[in-house]
């Protein structure tokens, strides 16, 4: 099946092209369009599955498929190549599996939208780009996918382009992503150059991990390279300081949010670090930065999640926070745990987003019938929906329990693994555990706040609208059920050793990913500290504490939002704090103030200022310029031939003068 690797990205690409070109005029039928889109991803899923089984059964753990040469530069040969190894196989399953469910869901959710064909075309393209990113055998093929997901997210977030906020959000996502992308490119450039100066001209991932040691462990250059790559990862995976685009990305249709947040795009950064683990493991300083940024993001985003009233925004900040966990895992060298959490997060976060979509769908429907203009996404308008939407409610609840880290659900296993490594790893520390555990408690709190505001308590929706709220069709609920199921059982592939010891379940995932991560972890001695490795007490103690913290979070949320008027009193007591949290700590304003506005002004300044003023100003003399300034910008004349000629002459005089008189 390996030789059919190219089929995996091929199907979604074809689906995208068919829907994009023929959807509007020739196909028209929503069912057919949706069917083609879903089928394309399902086909990829089937191929991925067979590849996965072959890989886990076979002895060959790394397979590179080369489909011809792309570019040759000196000794650097760049091929069109795909790479299948346990890491990419696992990612393929997550992307195509969750992706197909989301496609199926979209058929129901997007029913009747203008540009249905367009939506499916973009969605397939998105999956295609993500698959290229995952399968890319060298950094440039990965970069195609890397750029591609940014681009598709741009198209999808701005899908409702009539809304100005959607267009702005899309632009923001793209621009922020591009900042990250250039980190990636610069990192690649530096890597290529430094490895090249060591005599190895390559950007192939397998060769990079083989030759990474040439750069010297802990050397400055490897730190710089990995930091640049990490900058790329923060852009894509919404970490501090480049996380602002992700919450705004909620402007897109809900399935898009699910796709971006759960299975694709945002996991790209984590995946990329996992892909280059050999390189990153060599740079302890960078790893430290990653761990700290991850932990900080986890708690920072969780704190913002407290005060959001828009159901999707809560989930968005929760994604940022959970991604922080993954980076924390990567930073302390727990690569497997990071990927594990990526996987379980894909399940429960997809379920949460699709569930919220189902709620919004129902609310929208209800409000529409009642001719109300209330925001269907505002949780303050909801409440008591559990009776109306049983499937949605139960799946949402299961996913919430999973994300909160309640034992025996998938989130518990993966999060606990991360916490354990954060505390016990040779690259970790107690502070990281404290921060991460705190964030876990906050997660439990705001997620249950979300559930209680949405599904429990009295119904706050307008009475007329209330009657029209009902459960969504099967295409929407079926994915929910499947995802909820996965959110429960998904964790059992990676049961921590301490627990597995008693119930005789081995840690499948660790064994499976060993060929990818084992080498780096062994070489750079990244493991649980010796004094903790055999202490079951320590592990169970930490586990117990994290469960306790999660329990406290859940209990507080239920208490606050169901029983008492504590939140209102809290707001009354600390109005400023609440407002600050509500306004996302004024980060957007700060960014506007610090970066966006100066950049705009800088561009404007250089345009009007340089072309108009400097050249003209040199001509006219400073006094004249002052006069012109006072007269106002519109009196500044330019487009004069002679100013241009003057510029040329000055250029000539300066250049010749410099060379002749030096």
């Amino acid at each position, binding site marked *: 099946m390996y030789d059919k690797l190219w089929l995996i990205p091929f199907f979604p690409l074809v689906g995208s092209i068919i829907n994009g070109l023929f959807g*509007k005029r020739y196909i028209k039928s929503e069912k057919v369009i949706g069917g083609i889109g879903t089928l394309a991803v399902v086909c990829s899923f089937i191929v991925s599955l067979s590849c996965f089984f072959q890989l886990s059964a076979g002895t060959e753990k790394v397979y590179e498929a080369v489909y*011809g*040469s*792309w*570019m*040759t*530069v*000196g000794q*650097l040969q760049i091929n069109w190549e795909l790479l299948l190894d346990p890491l990419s196989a696992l990612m393929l399953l997550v992307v195509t599996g969750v992706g197909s469910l989301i496609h199926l869901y979209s058929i129901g959710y997007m029913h009747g939208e203008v540009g249905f064909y367009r939506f499916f075309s973009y969605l397939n393209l998105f999956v295609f780009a993500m698959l290229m990113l995952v399968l890319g055998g060298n950094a*440039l093929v990965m*970069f*195609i996918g890397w*750029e591609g997901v940014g*681009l598709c997210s741009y*198209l999808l977030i*701005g899908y409702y*382009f*009539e809304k100005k906020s*959607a*267009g702005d959000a*899309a*632009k923001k996502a*793209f*621009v922020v992503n*591009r*900042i990250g*992308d*250039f980190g990636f*490119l*610069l990192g690649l*450039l*530096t890597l*290529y*150059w430094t490895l*090249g100066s060591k005599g190895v001209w390559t950007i192939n991932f397998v060769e990079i991990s083989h030759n990474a040691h040439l750069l010297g462990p802990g050397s400055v250059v490897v730190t710089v390279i990995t930091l640049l790559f990490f900058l790329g990862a923060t852009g894509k995976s919404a970490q501090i300081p480049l996380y602002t685009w992700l919450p705004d990305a909620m402007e897109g249709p809900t399935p898009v949010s699910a796709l971006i947040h759960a299975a694709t795009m945002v996991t790209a950064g984590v995946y990329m670090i996992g892909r280059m683990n050999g390189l990153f493991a060599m740079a302890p300083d960078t790893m430290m930065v990653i761990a700290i940024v991850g932990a900080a993001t986890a708690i920072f985003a969780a704190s913002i999640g407290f005060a959001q009233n828009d159901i999707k925004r809560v989930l968005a900040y929760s994604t940022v926070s959970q991604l922080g966990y993954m980076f924390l895992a990567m930073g302390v060298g727990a690569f497997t745990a990071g990927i594990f959490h990526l996987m379980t997060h894909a399940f429960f976060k997809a379920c949460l987003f699709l569930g919220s979509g189902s709620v919004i769908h129902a609310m929208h429907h209800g409000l529409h019938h009642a001719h109300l203009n209330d925001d269907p996404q505002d949780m303050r308008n909801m409440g008591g929906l559990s009776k109306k939407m049983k499937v949605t409610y139960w799946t949402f609840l299961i996913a919430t329990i999973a994300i909160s880290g309640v034992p025996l659900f998938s989130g518990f296993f993966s999060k606990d693994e991360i916490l354990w490594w954060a505390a016990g790893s040779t690259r970790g520390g107690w502070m990281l555990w404290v921060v991460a555990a705190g964030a876990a408690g906050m997660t439990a709190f705001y997620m249950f706040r979300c559930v209680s505001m949405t599904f429990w308590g009295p119904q706050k929706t307008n009475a007329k609208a209330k009657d029209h709220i009902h459960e969504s069709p099967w295409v929407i609920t079926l994915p929910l059920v499947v995802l909820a199921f996965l959110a429960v059982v998904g964790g059992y592939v990676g049961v921590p050793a301490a627990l597995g010891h008693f119930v005789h379940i081995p840690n499948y995932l660790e064994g499976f990913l060993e060929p990818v991560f084992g080498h780096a972890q062994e070489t750079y001695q990244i493991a649980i500290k010796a004094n903790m490795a055999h202490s079951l007490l320590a592990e169970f103690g930490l586990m117990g504490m994290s469960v306790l913290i999660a329990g406290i979070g859940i209990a507080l949320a239920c208490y606050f939002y169901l029983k008492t008027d504590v939140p209102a009193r809290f707001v009354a007591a600390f109005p400023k704090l609440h407002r600050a949290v509500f306004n996302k700590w004024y980060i957007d304003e700060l960014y506007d103030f610090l970066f966006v506005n100066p950049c705009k002004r*800088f*561009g*404007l300044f*250089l*345009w*009007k200022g*340089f*072309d108009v003023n400097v*050249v003209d100003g040199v001509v006219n003399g400073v006094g004249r310029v002052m006069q012109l300034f006072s007269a106002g910008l519109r009196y500044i004349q330019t*487009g004069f*031939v002679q*100013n*241009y*000629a003057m*510029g*040329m002459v*000055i*250029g*000539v005089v300066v*250049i*010749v003068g410099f*060379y*002749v008189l030096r």
Partner: protein
Amino acid sequence: MENLVQAALATVNYAAIMPSLILTGFGMLLLLIGVFSKPGRTSHIAWISIVGLIVAAVASAQAWSALGATGVEFGFTNHVAQDGFALFFNFIFLVSAALTILMSDDYLKREGYAVGEYYALILFTTAGAMWMASGTDMMTIFLGLEVLSISLYVLAGFFRRDARSNEAGLKYFLLGAFSTGFLLYGMALLYGVVGTTNIANLGMYLAAHKALVTSPMTIAGMLLLLTGFLFKIAIVPFHMWTPDVYEGAPTPITAFMSAGPKAAAIAALLRFLLLGFDSMQAEWTALFWVLAVLTMTVGNLLAISQTNIKRMLAYSSVSHAGYAMVGIVAANAIGMSGVLYYMLAYAFMNIGAFAVLALAGKQGEENLTLEGFAGFGYKRPFLGVAMCVFLFSLMGLPPTAGFAGKFYVFAGAVEAGYIWLAVIGVLNSALSLYYYLRVMVSMYFREPTEDFAWVSMPMGAMICIILAIAGVLYLGVLPQQVMEMAKTAMF
């Protein structure tokens, strides 16, 4: 007398100028046909000129495959050298001219200037460009440059009832003639230093007389001469005519100017640098390092605040010239062949983008602003997608031609050790994203403000756009073969 004729005939080698000869022949033929054609009915002239370009391309291809062991065919006592370098540039010129002519037919009719001379002038311009690329003597290159420039002055001001076109033509003319003055003064000084106008002889003489390399007269001559070419390539600070002229000129001509003649000036520049001033490499790499950084940065920064898309693309073409300069600074095989590759890629992507503009504009082209493009992507899906492809390529996203081109020149710079230059280049292309993106935002995220229903889809323009897309994707996905050609083309 007899002797003179024989001596004259002995120097003639038509094979060495065959493509340009074909083009001038067709150009004159078009002038004749134009006389007998009714104004406004010029489609057949456009197609005949396409035939001429194809014949010239065939001749070039044949010459390419016939390149022997020496890889060069001299003619006219070393005035032209038809080598791989010249032939590769021939293809760039032919592609630019063909795409330009394809998009012109309908455009000229819409604007009411459909006459045969237009096509003849484009063919003459292309021939001039070929003489610049293949000339090995200052005089040939200078005359090629003038054929090209004078045709372009006319073409830029071709819409003679349109004040903006007049202004563009006149500005271009005055500044172009002015820069010619500097170019010639440089040539005069160099002639004084070495006593020859032949570039190869110049190079050999300078290599043999090391003292001359540091002589102020040589350096001043070289710099003044470079100035003339830098003006044509629109390198900062000699770029200031570009936005005005590009904005005012007829759109197809703007497209053409930004690709063909620019490539021609780069060809002549490269021949001077590599053949003539080889021994002064340290001097000119330092100069081009600074100019490349300035050009990229200024071009991009100024493009940011433009609202007229045509003008924005003009500033962007300034910055693209800067990227090409990066390859020249690298001055190694990858960088130099990267420049050739970049110019070919740029011809496809930029002319493609302008072709979309030419189709989208109304008569008088008042609507080529960001507002005018609002919702364009939904009203004209095909053109919208095409524009996106070209913009991606201009941004330098993989897998498009623009990415491969930038990759080659930057990789060349990295290999030559100019890592910072490559970094600045990469940062600049990040900066360029902002303004290209605004076009896409306009096309896809704004409510349409006007009706695009009147846009017809003429066959020529469609072929042009499809060819450009094919070129952009081919050069991006499978750049290897063309890059090998570019490598063999470098001397």
